[in-house]
C-alpha cells in the first residue's frame, strides 16, 4: 500500500501579551487545522495569562529571508548614515529638535 499518511502540519504561534503591545512569535506546534492550532496554542503558550490575543499561521505560508544573503539584503542600509538624525549638525542654540 502506498504511504499516503499525512501528519499534522506545523503552525507558528504569535501572542499579544497585552493590549498596546504587538503580537510576538512564541513558538510553534502541530495541529490538524487552524481551529485546533488555536486551542493547542492556548494550552501550550498561555497557561499563565501570557496573552490576550493569539494568531496562528501555518508555517508553510511564511517566507523567510536567507541568512546567507544577509549581505545583499541588509548591508545597503549601513552606509546611509543620513537616515539618522545624528548625521545633521545643528548649532547648540537649537534645542529640542
Amino acid at each position, binding site marked *: 500500500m502506498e504511504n499516503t*499518511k*499525512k*501528519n*499534522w502540519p*506545523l503552525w507558528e504561534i504569535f501572542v499579544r501579551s497585552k493590549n498596546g503591545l504587538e503580537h510576538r512569535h512564541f513558538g510553534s506546534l502541530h495541529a*490538524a*487545522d487552524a481551529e485546533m492550532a488555536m486551542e493547542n496554542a492556548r494550552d501550550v503558550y498561555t497557561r*499563565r495569562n501570557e496573552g490576550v490575543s493569539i494568531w496562528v499561521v501555518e508555517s508553510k505560508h511564511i517566507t523567510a529571508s536567507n*541568512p546567507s544573503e544577509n549581505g545583499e539584503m541588509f548591508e545597503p542600509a549601513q552606509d546611509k548614515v543620513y537616515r539618522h538624525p545624528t548625521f545633521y549638525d545643528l548649532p547648540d542654540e537649537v534645542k529640542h529638535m
Partner: protein
Amino acid sequence: MSEKDIKNLEEIFEARIARDEKIEPKDWMPEKYRQTHIRQISQHAHSEIIGMLPEGNWITRAPSLRRKAALLAKVQDEAGHGLYLYSACETLGISRDELYEQLHSGKAKYSSIFNYPTITWADMGAIGWLVDGAAIINQVPLCNTSFGPYARAMVRVCKEESFHQRQGFEIMLTLCRGTEEQKAMAQDALNRWWWPALMMLGPTDAESIHTEQSMKWKLKRKSNDELRQQFIDQTVPQADLLGITVPDPDLKWNEETGHYDFGEIDWDEFWQVVKGHGPCNKERMKARVDAWENGEWVRDAAMAYAEKNEKRKVAKAS
C-alpha cells in the same frame, strides 16, 4: 564546498559563539553542531514526556483537591515543556515523527530518573523537590546556550519550573510535620530518590564524553560534577529543615572547601538504568508506545476532518 571553505566557515562559526552571538536555525552550522543539538534537545523533550508518567500515576489518588489541581498543572506543564523542546528541535531539520520514532525504538534516551517507580504519595513530594530541583540546576545555565530556539524554550521552561519544586517541597514539609508514619514516608521517599537524583546530573566529568565540545558551544556551561556539587550544597540544608536524613553516611560539611563532601555514587546502577534495565524502563516505554499507537486513529480522524472542511471551504468559494 571544498574542505578549506568548510574549515573557514567553521572558524567564523566558532568565533561567533565565542562572542556570545546566538545561532538561529537557518544560519550555517557545522553538521556536528546540528547533530549534537538534535541529540540533546530531543533527549530533553523525551524526558519531559516520559516524566509525566511517574507523576500521572498519582493524579487520581492525590490526597486533596488542592494537591490534585497542582499535580495536574505540573504534569500539564511537562507536556508543554516537551512541546516547546520538540518544536525547537524541529527547527534543526528533523521531523516530529522521526523524533518520536527514535524515542519509541529506544534509539534516543531520556533521563534515567523516570525509570524509578512512584510507590507512595511522598514520591510526589520527593520528585518535585529533588528531581525538579536537579532539573532546574541543569536548565538555568541553558537559558544562555548558543542555539536561539533552545535558549528561548529554556527561558520559558525555567520560569515555570520553580512552582514544580516548591509544590514538591511543600508536600514534603506537610508530611514531615504530620504523624510519625507520614514523616517516615517522607524519609523513605528521600532514601529512594536521593541517589538517583544525584545520578540525574550525569556521569562524572572524567566519564562524560560530550562535555568538552558542549562547553565550547555553550550547550553546557558547567560540568556535571560542578552541577552535582551545587545541587548537594543547596539541598542538604533543606533536608535538615525538613528534619529528615540524607541517606549518605559520608556526607559531611567541609569547612575548608566550603562544600559538602559526599559518598561514592553507584555508577553501575546508573549505567544499568540507562541501558534499559531499571525498575520501570519497559513499563515506561510500553505506556508511551501504547499512547502513541492507540491515538493514531484520533490523529488520522482529525486530519481527515480538517481536509474535508478545507474542501468544503474551497467548494463554497468557487
